């Protein structure tokens, strides 16, 4: 994990030199989506709860930032933090009653949230600017750094992503992470261990919403514009797609998923202007077929197989293979979550 993170950060920080300004913007979006998907992965992959409504939290983050920076002249840094905090609270509160629902019922309850979002945004037009939306100023480059505004947003998003990746890693590795995963694996046994399942589920929902809300804040800054129809139910479904394609029960999967939902629709457009979504759908099916545990799952399998073959070449300590296998088995859960027996 540490190695992977260093790699992402290293490549990420050097990349803009080689990118056109449009590509810089595209990668900024990848990072932003990755932050959103990270939230969804914690919820779906680790805690076993579904959401078809995370677009709503993305919208909350985006509008919080738009309103705070344009109406109240609050610096965008504070707006991002406020967006995360507000999403956390709303997610937690939504979680309290909604989590009485399980599985498909929760999926539908959250879908209702996604459906309502654009209309709610239009309804409160004194705040949100209605259908017109709100135009934001792009953050200016601080300290007179010799980079463009788009490059600055790129670095900002990447930095936030790295921080939130580390945070997720630490959260999931410790005591809280064990409790979150235990609830997914066996809620009754988790309760028998003294884990307050209801509280943890709501908290996880809140943390998940916080991630997606922060992503929404960055998204608003990157695009410099928010409008209700950007936050349709389609966005929520797109998040779910990215999350599953990347690998729900993984942290790194969020980055692959982010790349998928950013790039695949564009390429689908290039292949067929008439039916891009058919191409998108086909790609999706191929991905699911080839990588049933997501891109991250595939990478882990390959890594585990490599470790095993290396271990068998030089009769290495058994524990190494065991650990590699453990790492692999640990993530088979993506399928379990989706109700497909492994």
């Amino acid at each position, binding site marked *: 994990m540490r190695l992977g993170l260093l790699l992402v950060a290293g490549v990420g920080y050097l990349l803009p030199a080689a990118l056109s300004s449009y590509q810089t913007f595209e990668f900024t979006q990848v990072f932003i989506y990755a932050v959103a998907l990270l939230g969804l992965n914690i919820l779906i992959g680790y805690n076993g709860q579904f959401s078809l409504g995370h677009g709503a939290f993305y919208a909350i983050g985006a509008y919080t930032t738009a309103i705070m920076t344009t109406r109240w002249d609050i610096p965008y840094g504070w707006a991002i933090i406020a967006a995360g905090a507000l999403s956390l609270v709303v997610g937690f509160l939504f979680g309290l009653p909604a989590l009485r629902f399980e599985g498909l019922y929760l999926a539908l309850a959250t879908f209702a949230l996604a459906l309502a979002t654009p209309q709610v945004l239009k309804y409160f037009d004194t705040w949100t600017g209605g259908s017109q939306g709100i135009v934001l100023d792009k953050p200016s480059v601080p300290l007179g750094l010799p980079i463009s505004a788009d490059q600055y947003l790129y670095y900002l998003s990447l930095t936030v992503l790295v921080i939130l990746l580390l945070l997720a890693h630490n959260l999931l590795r410790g*005591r809280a992470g064990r409790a979150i995963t235990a609830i*997914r694996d*066996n809620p009754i*046994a988790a309760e028998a261990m*003294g*884990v307050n399942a209801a509280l943890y589920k709501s908290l996880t929902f809140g943390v998940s919403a916080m991630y997606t809300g922060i992503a929404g804040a960055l998204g608003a800054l990157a695009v410099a514009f928010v409008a209700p129809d950007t936050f349709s139910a389609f966005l929520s479904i797109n998040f779910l797609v990215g999350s599953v394609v990347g690998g729900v029960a993984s942290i790194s999967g969020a980055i692959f998923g982010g790349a998928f939902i950013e790039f695949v629709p564009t390429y689908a457009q290039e292949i067929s202007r008439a039916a891009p979504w058919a191409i998108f759908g086909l790609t999706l099916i191929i991905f699911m077929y080839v990588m049933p545990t997501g891109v991250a799952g595939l990478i882990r399998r390959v890594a585990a197989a490599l470790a095993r073959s290396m271990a068998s070449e030089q009769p290495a300590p058994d524990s190494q293979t065991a650990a590699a296998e*453990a790492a692999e088995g*640990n993530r088979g859960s993506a399928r*379990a979550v989706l109700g497909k027996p492994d």
Partner: protein
Amino acid sequence: MAALLEASNLEAYYGWSKVLHGLRFAVEKDKVTVVLGANGAGKTTLLRAISGMIRTGGEIRFAGERIDGQAPEDIVRRGIAHVPEGRGTFINLTVEENLRLGAYVRKDKTGIREDLDRVFHFFPVLKEKSRNPAGVLSGGEQQMLALARGLMLRPRLLLLDEPSLGLAPVLVMELFRIVRAINESEGVTVLLVEQDAVAALELAHQAYLLETGSIVTSGPAAELRENDSIRRSYLGY
């Protein structure tokens, strides 16, 4: 003799349906008590009632204090470990992570570390596989894990729900030998619910017989072993 756990007029409900009908029983300190009963008698329900996982009526006292109506985490904190029916393995977590969940409500890091070593001493197979996902363990190993996970609480009372389920007779004997050792050397009081009456009465000091939510017989385990009707219906000889 002092009772560590006492229940009187204990009722338990799933929704509106009442499953336990006013039980009275006691679990003596430092002893092994067994509750025998057929499928659907209410054994699992009885343990869930003690753990605060379902709605109850009547009174439950642990070490003299009322615990009925309290939240499961508060009951666990008092030192009541529940080894649930069907093992309750967290299949995607490693063996060690499973064990650490047993100590979830504890905060003393060094004590937890010590107790890990202690349960690895009781169950060497778990040490070997400590970094494997628990889902790949065999049924017997998972039962060992469930028991070990219960011990990680450093409990005063251990609730065991049909540990013999699905195990070969030799393994049941092995497991019960370990339970006896834990009871004797660690001073852990045990409340066991079982269908395997032969093995359970061998292990236990005190026994109760549960039928459709009511206790019909009780007494020292040695006496129940000699009881004709129990022999016919539960021991089969």
